[in-house]
């Protein structure tokens, strides 16, 4: 494996892990709130979270540039103050992967949380548990399988993210070139041997993740 290929693989794994952690941090509470709370704007939040699932990834990427690019709504003030922009850094790859993976986790986890019998939560309330502690001690543990499945999907999506990453992070070798981008570049430049190595690496990695997820799921039941 070439140095470029190795660095792309290391970057992809790093991006996917960080994006999955961010997904857990944002997506699990979001899934809980969407499943269990009625609030104004719930439909809008649901729409915004789900949109990257149906939009072409380049369109999502375009919106991310509009938001975070050097001249973006958020990006411009940050650039004005710090002289730094997230665009074309590996953080951008993390952000793109996180946004693209979020709907998969939120939808899966939300369905799992909604399928938890509400009577169990009511029972916890009458036994003195606050809503917060009921979520931690009853609802989320019982939705565990669905949440794990959602995290696996999110990790796989983050690992394979291409379009939005290319838009926001670019394709800078050694800096923002993840495995999917490296495969694309290798094929474009006729380096088929390089492409095959990366394709196999990604396939093996995906299989490992699925096997690990199966183990975790089996232990939970």
């Amino acid at each position, binding site marked *: 494996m070439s140095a470029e290929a190795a660095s792309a693989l290391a970057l992809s794994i790093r991006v996917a892990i960080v994006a999955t952690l961010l997904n857990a941090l944002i997506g699990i509470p979001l899934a809980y709130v969407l499943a269990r709370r009625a609030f104004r704007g719930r439909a809008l939040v649901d729409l915004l979270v789900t949109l990257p699932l149906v939009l072409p990834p380049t369109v999502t990427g375009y919106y991310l540039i509009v938001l975070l690019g050097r001249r973006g709504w958020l990006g411009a003030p940050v650039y004005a103050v710090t002289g730094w922009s997230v665009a074309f850094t590996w953080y951008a790859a993390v952000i793109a992967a996180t946004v693209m993976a979020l709907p998969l986790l939120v939808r899966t986890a939300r369905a799992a949380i909604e399928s938890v019998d509400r*009577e*169990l939560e*009511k029972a916890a*309330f*009458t036994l*003195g548990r606050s809503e917060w502690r009921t979520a931690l001690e009853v609802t989320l*543990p019982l939705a565990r399988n669905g949440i794990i499945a959602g995290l696996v999907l999110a990790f796989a999506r983050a690992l394979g993210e291409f379009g939005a990453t290319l838009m926001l992070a670019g394709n800078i070798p050694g800096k923002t070139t993840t495995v999917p981008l490296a495969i694309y570049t290798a094929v474009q430049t006729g380096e088929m041997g390089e492409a095959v190595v990366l394709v196999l690496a990604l396939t093996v990695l995906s299989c490992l993740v699925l096997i690990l997820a199966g183990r975790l799921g089996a232990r939970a039941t």
Partner: protein
Amino acid sequence: MSHRFSIEITKRLPGFTLDVSWVAGDGVAVLFGPSGAGKTLTLQCLAGLIRPDAGRIVVDDRVLFDAAAGVNLPPQERRVGYVFQSYALFPHLSVAGNVGFGLRDRPRQERERRVAEVLERLDLTGLAPRWPSELSGGQRQRVALGRALAIDPALLLLDEPLSALDAPLRRALRDELRAILSGWGTAAVLVTHDFTEAYRLADRIVVYENGRVIQAAPRAELLWQPASEAVARVMGLRNVLHGVVVKSMPDRIQIAWRGHTLEAVNSPTRTYLPPPETPIAFFIRPEYVRLVRKDRSLDAAHHMNRMRGTVVGETDFGTVWSLRLRLDTPGEPAQGDFDLEVEVPHLVYEILEIDRDRQWDFSIHRGSIHVLPT
């Protein structure tokens, strides 16, 4: 300690309004009535899981809810134990974990002691490490009871606690449940739509119909003195009949019905004196109608309210026969094609050879005709 609680609430839902007021004290109060009458909704209001629109709930001098004063304790602070219809055991916790769930804020030693004590009293000690999915229906019920009782609730609520069980087990567990409730001494409110269950478990029965309370009384009083025709119907009483008052006195009342003048005992506690010609409802329990044996000499003093009729239909219920009798007097029968339902044990049916002999004289003691005030 003696308990006393009162509830007076209204709750409007789309297409249904709950508007109830009743009181209860020590022992078990049973909310009895058809499905959809508002019984479970009342439990949820008591537990704080649903907020009533108006009213007041007081348990042992603690105000749990008072719309006018803006008091609405959350379920966490009510100290009201709830045994759900499905038991709602936490499937990811062991039996001990379930029973100890309400005690997690207490010091570890105290918690373990209390869990052990509750398991011991409910005969669950050996099951402590088991999962709910490994338990039988009866064991699940005891775990659900133990979990609710472990927090030493001021009030215990049970929603159809026996409905998840098979019929034979149900009867055995009904008696077990009664023993547990009386042994524990916690004031309890139990919901059921089965009158036998209500009667077996209750000290006091509150009859619900369509979001309202139509009678609240000690169980014996309800059984013998339903307050109205509506209560009699909800209880599933048979032979609810309509006649006209001939004469009423404090101790007895005469009713014209199907060409006969029936004499019934008036309720001494009610001093119910409707004037002559008043339409009146009454009921006759099928098992209290006496067939007059043809081989015995007639002793008029033993046979009040004598009538003659024909068996026009019969149903075998295994241990008793239910006969449908049509009076020989002319006129439209009171209940479709018959006037009275009469229940006789199999033995009597065989001795009297009712399968061959269809024409009978029968009598009803005046104490067995129950007037239903309007």
